[in-house]
């Protein structure tokens, strides 16, 4: 994997993009986006947007500063695997919180879980 270092221009452009995106996140936080109630949890679109921007920024860092594409196969596969298992952990655990039985755990014979009052 002997890598050819990128031109300084690439780094500077990445840097500029990161700065711009930082400004965008700050501005985006000033908006008040809807909060969507989901059962006992709340999905807040503000945070969804902020995380989307953060993901773009993170990808820039990984792709250009960490010159991901020059990395060997092993590093690439493992980096993806790491993120994948992280998401597995997040979503399976959240699946619990979204569906916790409340006082009444109503069976499937009934018309669905009682405690969930989604319209």
């Amino acid at each position: 994997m002997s890598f050819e270092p990128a031109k300084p221009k690439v780094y500077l452009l990445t840097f500029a993009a990161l700065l711009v995106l930082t400004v965008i996140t700050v501005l985006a936080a000033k908006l008040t986006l809807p909060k969507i109630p989901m059962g006992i949890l709340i999905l807040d679109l503000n945070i969804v947007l902020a995380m989307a921007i953060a993901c773009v920024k993170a990808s820039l860092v990984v792709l250009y500063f960490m010159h991901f594409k020059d990395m060997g196969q092993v590093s690439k596969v493992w980096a993806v695997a790491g993120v994948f298992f992280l998401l597995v952990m997040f979503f399976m655990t959240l699946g619990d919180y979204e569906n916790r039985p409340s006082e009444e755990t109503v069976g499937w014979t009934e018309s669905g879980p009682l405690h969930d009052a989604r319209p």
Partner: protein
Amino acid sequence: MSTHEGDLHVGHQFEDAEQQLDSYSAGMWLFLVTEVLFFGGLFLAYIIYRTRYTEAFVAAHHELDWQLGGLNTVILITSSLTMALGVRAAVLNRMKAVLGWLGLTFLCAGGFMVVKYIEYSAKFEHNLFPGPNFEFHHAGIDPGQAQMFFNLYFAMTGLHGAHVLIGMITMIILVIRLWVMRKQRIDFIPIELTGLYWHFVDLVWIFLFPLFYLVGGN
């Protein structure tokens, strides 16, 4: 860059410099994967409590100064840039440039820690550090839930700060090593690896900043 690799030191276990470089960079990426999952546990806790205690989180985040947070974001991004340029200089074997870039990166890291210190001490002053002395008064907000925000704030930024410190120590060691071996071709592998680590530290902050300072939607 294979021309330069010829005169690098190759560990006894390796056949050649290429295998060595490959192994080290793969090793570093694997290490970063473990770091992702290490922070992951905390992020999971954040997601859960944030969705449960949304209002308290919104109220509590006003206690943080987004301008200081933003400043720190800029500082860290800058340090990532200088680090990337430092790594580049190392591969190109430009000793002075390496020292210069590493020095700048170190300064940025130091600046980051100073800002953190200011922020932390303000929190301590206002009794916002979780524990028996914790005080949070805001109409309609359960202080216990606000405390959860600060629990996570201190746990996550604290852990991140520890990573910054480790990065700074590593940079000092790098510079000493460079100085000791100044007569030789620059061994860029350690610099490259530190660079990867440093970018990762930046990357974590990129997520922490909006999560804590810009909870948003007042």
